């Protein structure tokens, strides 16, 4: 510590240690806040199977499922001071046709819910950013974030299968997932069971349903252009 340079180095060296310990404490503080995500409603409101192509130049005709669903979920308890954003997504899952204990799983819809502390990082339009800032009201946590309310939501991503066959598929279920992305610490996904103050996602599965058979040709063509 006898010269300025040595003092600079020592102070900075100790600063890195301290910053690391503070980061550890922040990430550990996550375990103190309860997580009680719940799903009130997750159900399909419209089911349809149509024939179509992946794109205009694709020669392969595949079957696509058209699903509309209603979701009412409360993920607001996932937001703490250390939450940067929550990624919520809905998958469709169904057992493999070959009966080999495999599960088909495809994401059909997703969204990124930013915490007020990361609004500036999101790729938002100025008006949406303004609305988000207003709802946060200068606070670090906004309880209205994380409340998902979708009605007759269309698929965000086309749902098909590598075999190209999807009609009459049985035991399909929709499932809500989430992924909490903290400022410091580990990513965490929805849990299958309770873990301390972190409770498992309740009601995250829809009822099992069967995808309908393909309708007559004229109708199917019309729907394909829309899908």
């Amino acid at each position: 510590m006898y010269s300025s340079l040595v003092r600079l180095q020592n102070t900075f060296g100790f600063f890195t240690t301290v910053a690391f310990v503070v980061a550890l404490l922040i990430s550990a503080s996550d375990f103190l806040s309860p997580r009680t995500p719940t799903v009130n409603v997750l159900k399909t409101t419209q089911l349809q199977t149509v024939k179509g192509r992946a794109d205009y130049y694709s020669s392969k005709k595949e079957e696509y499922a058209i699903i509309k669903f209603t979701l009412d979920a409360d993920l607001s308890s996932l937001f703490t001071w250390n939450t940067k954003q929550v990624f919520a997504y809905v998958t469709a899952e169904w057992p493999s046709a070959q009966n080999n204990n495999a599960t088909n799983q495809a994401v059909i819809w997703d969204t990124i819910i930013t915490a007020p502390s990361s609004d500036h990082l999101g790729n938002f339009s100025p008006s949406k950013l303004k609305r988000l800032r207003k709802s946060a009201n200068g606070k670090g946590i906004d309880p209205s974030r994380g409340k998902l309310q979708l009605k007759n939501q269309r698929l965000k991503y086309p749902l098909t299968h590598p075999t190209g066959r999807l009609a009459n598929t049985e035991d399909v279920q929709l499932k809500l997932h989430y992924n909490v992305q903290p400022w410091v610490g580990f990513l965490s996904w929805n849990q299958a069971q309770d873990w301390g103050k972190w409770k498992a996602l309740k009601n995250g599965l829809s009822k099992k349903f069967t995808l309908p058979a393909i309708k007559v040709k004229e109708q199917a063509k019309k729907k394909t252009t829309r899908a």
Partner: protein
Amino acid sequence: MAEQLLEQARDIFEGQIDFEGQKLVENLVNISLSIVGVRFYHNPLFQQTALTSPQAIAFLVGYFLQDIKLAVYIGLAGTAATFLLTVPPWPIYNKNPVKWLPVAGAAPPTNIVIDEKMLR
């Protein structure tokens, strides 16, 4: 003349402080940067003052106000203040200069003055 200037510039750049000052700086760095329980448990005085250190404040304020930006800003501001406090050779760190013993043996020749300070 040029050598003198160089010497002065080097002194300023090096910013040397005395031993007591070094001890003080060491403690100041530890207290002002630390959080409770890190590194300075050997001195009970520091355990009390550590509660007021910027990083501890940053964490506690951030946690209780649930605002991570505030925590980062407090932590960085506190760190900047610590650098300002410890890096320059403030006069307080030079209060106890080393008193060298007079040169043993023959008395220094009176007609040649090498360095007024060194021989006193």
